[in-house]
């Protein structure tokens, strides 16, 4: 496979965008099909590129002019994240009704995300990420300019931070190429910039950030594609940071801080979810909650933790494509998807969470406390999920039965994929070995079980029979009454001090400059003075400049 083929996963969505725009007169259906075909083609190209060689492939097309070259590099971890980002994106482009403009912009955003993932250096990743974030904002505004969307600044900050980290590496180490940066160059300051980029780029924050608010829009077309592409891209940076640091972060406390942040994010999502007044409010918290657990697992700094994070990201990817397809009414589809997101055994999300928590316990020190908090958070999320079943829909989106069926199938896939977790581990262990050293016994010596430090997870032997027994038993069981208890509408608990914090926030936001001082801060008057072309001001400025340089 010639190295130039590395351009294919980027070029195909771009070409699809161009064709979608060119065929706009033929109707939206054509544009939708073209865009979906482009995303699927990119996915196939990525898979073919990897499967034909099964080792890292590189392509260098020379310097671009700003200190970074057009260096593409496809390694195992790139393929894993590419698949995690492309599968839901392709599904959504296939299943959701979109106008040609949305199809075009979404395809370009997908190409930008693949560029960021395939990029061989950090600066190019920043360009790809910034492009994807900008196009996400454009998608939101095309879809509904009045609906809530992430502020442009909030999606730009992370990529400017990453660009700064990249150029700092260039200045201090002479290169920002992932494969060439010396281990000593990854200082705490540079890692902090990468972490800021990762957390804000994916919207992984404990408060109700943009990653939550986008799910509350009237339409979920742009939200779902954005969540499907930007969430993995953010966490991808933290995984690449392991490669830069030869399998570890500059300081152990950084791992601990990130893991704690991940639990805080999941806890924030769970606390908000248990107080949600509608099912759509609950749904908005599911993907960020999973992202918090994924962050916690990835931050532990072991191969098992990283694998657990990947499993949770894969679950989040499938659920991201299922959530916007759910109907408003209470249905088995909603039940399956909610159960899968909550981590009901023996689902994929269950396996990922168990592995992540187990790994945190086995890492020891304060990670154990983080793991206890994580486990408690998991139960809060489970309680919120249980409560959500009885909540009113809370939105006016109607999904067809066919889409509901697809959502149900995706939910069942996540629930039924638990036994396959060991097989996934043996498939991805080579990719994980590319960024950190595997344990001596390996991650998954066979596709049946996963070895952690103190235990072994017999995925197939335990989850397999449980799945079969469970499916048979549930099929034979008698559903309970579909009643909604009044209590299920009330929050399970109130966060202490939340009301006080809200009132303080309202008070602070209501502060204004006293009337008698307003003239001092009148921007219009200041502008009039500055732009009035007054010689007196010019002379005063000249004197000020003279004083400034003479000191």
């Amino acid at each position, binding site marked *: 496979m010639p190295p130039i083929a590395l351009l294919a996963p980027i070029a195909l969505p771009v070409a699809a965008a161009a064709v979608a725009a060119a065929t706009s007169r033929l109707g939206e259906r054509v544009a939708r099909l073209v865009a979906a075909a482009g995303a699927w083609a990119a996915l196939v190209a990525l898979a073919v590129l990897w499967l034909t060689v099964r080792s890292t492939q590189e392509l260098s097309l020379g310097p671009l002019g700003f200190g970074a070259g057009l260096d593409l590099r496809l390694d195992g971890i790139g393929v894993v994240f590419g698949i995690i980002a492309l599968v839901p994106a392709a599904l959504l482009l296939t299943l959701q009704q979109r106008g040609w403009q949305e199809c075009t912009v979404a395809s370009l955003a997908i190409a930008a995300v693949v560029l960021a993932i395939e990029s061989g250096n950090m600066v190019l990743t920043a360009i790809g990420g910034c492009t994807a974030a900008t196009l996400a904002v454009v998608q939101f505004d095309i879809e509904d300019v009045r609906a809530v969307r992430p502020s442009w600044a909030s999606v730009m900050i992370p990529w400017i931070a990453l660009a700064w980290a990249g150029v700092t590496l260039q200045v201090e180490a002479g290169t920002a190429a992932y494969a060439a940066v010396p281990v000593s160059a990854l200082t705490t300051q540079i890692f902090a910039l990468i972490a800021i980029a990762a957390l804000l780029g994916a919207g992984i924050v404990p408060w109700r950030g943009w990653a939550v608010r986008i799910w509350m829009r009237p339409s979920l077309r742009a939200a779902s594609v954005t969540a499907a592409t930007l969430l993995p891209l953010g966490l991808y940076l933290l995984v690449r940071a392991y490669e830069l640091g030869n399998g570890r972060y500059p300081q152990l406390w950084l791992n601990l801080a990130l893991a704690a942040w991940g639990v805080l994010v999941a806890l924030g999502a769970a606390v908000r979810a248990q107080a949600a007044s509608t099912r759509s409010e609950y749904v908005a918290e599911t993907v960020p909650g999973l992202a918090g657990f994924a962050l916690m697992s990835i931050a532990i700094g072991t191969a098992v933790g990283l694998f657990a994070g990947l499993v949770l990201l894969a679950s989040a990817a499938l659920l991201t494509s299922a959530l916007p397809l759910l109907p408003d009414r209470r249905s088995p589809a909603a039940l399956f998807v909610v159960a899968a997101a909550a981590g009901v055994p023996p689902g994929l999300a269950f396996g990922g969470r168990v592995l992540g928590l187990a790994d945190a316990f086995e890492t020891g020190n304060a990670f154990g406390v983080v793991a206890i908090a994580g486990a408690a958070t998991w139960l*809060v999320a489970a309680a919120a999920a249980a*409560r959500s079943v009885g909540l009113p829909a809370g939105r006016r989106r109607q999904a067809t039965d066919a889409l509901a069926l697809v959502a149900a199938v995706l939910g069942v896939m996540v629930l039924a994929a638990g036994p396959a977790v060991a097989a996934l581990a043996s498939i991805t262990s080579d990719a994980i070995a590319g960024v950190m050293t595997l344990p001596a016994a390996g991650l998954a010596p066979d596709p049946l079980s996963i070895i952690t430090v103190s*235990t072994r997870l017999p995925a197939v032997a335990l989850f397999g029979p449980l799945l079969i027994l469970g499916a048979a038993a549930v099929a*034979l069981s008698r559903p309970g009454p579909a*009643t909604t208890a009044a*209590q299920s509408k009330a929050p399970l608990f109130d966060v202490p001090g939340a009301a006080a914090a809200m009132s303080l926030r309202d008070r602070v936001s209501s502060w204004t400059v006293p009337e008698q001082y307003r003239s001092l801060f009148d921007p219009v008057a200041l502008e009039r003075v500055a732009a009035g072309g007054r010689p007196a001001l010019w002379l005063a400025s000249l004197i000020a400049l003279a004083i400034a340089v003479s000191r």
Partner: protein
Amino acid sequence: MTQLLSSAAGDTLSLLVYPGLLTIAVFGLAIEVAWSAVARQAIGRPNLRWRRPPTVQVIVALLAMLAVTQFAAPFNAVPTADRNLVIAAIAIGFTAWAELALDPELVARPGLLLIIQSCWLLSVLGPAIEPESLRPQVLGNALVPALLPVKVASGFLYLLCLPALMRLWPMSPPAERRARPRFNATRTMLWFPYCGLFTTLFFPPSADDLAGAVRFFGISIIAALLCVLAGTLLARRGAERARGLYTRAVAPYSLLVLALIVVTLTLTR
């Protein structure tokens, strides 16, 4: 392939028979009958006609089966290396929420239940921090003097939480219209998971022989009876006192246990 089939057969046996479904049912039935007698509940005439079981009971049973396979019970066919405390704790924790999801009318005060469940989770997982192991038998075996205070404090917290988690407190769910609650089939399936986990975590594992089995189930039954006793006392004190106990005593005590865990962690480093 042979290895897969043999281990799958062993795990299936554990799920369905011992220490799985059959054991859960027998143990639970015995303790539930005892509780009904103590609480003067009507057991009701056994209905021998086959009826499809409610989904909520099926789900709770499946979760309980998964949990008990992780116990350090004698003759457990699941290899010791394959047992994981997190799986047991989360599977048991999920049972309450399966009820809330599938039959919300059965769950009283879910908010308070969540707080108590968090305290219980601390008592289950707290002792696992310092040993850095999730093998239940390893935690049961941990008798290092430095770790004993955490273990004892966690065990006591576990017992304090048990009556509420088993719904032996005097708080009737919304659907309950009767003065005297009836035999609770869902709870029947939770007696062994909760009590067996207590035995697994806080007592050295029993040998794989008859004496060991007697010891294991004996301790579990004592734990269950202690729970029944506490439930009776709570029932006498009334709902408000019970809620007061859990919000004003158990929750702060769990924070104390957490502090103890952190102090132990710091001192042993």
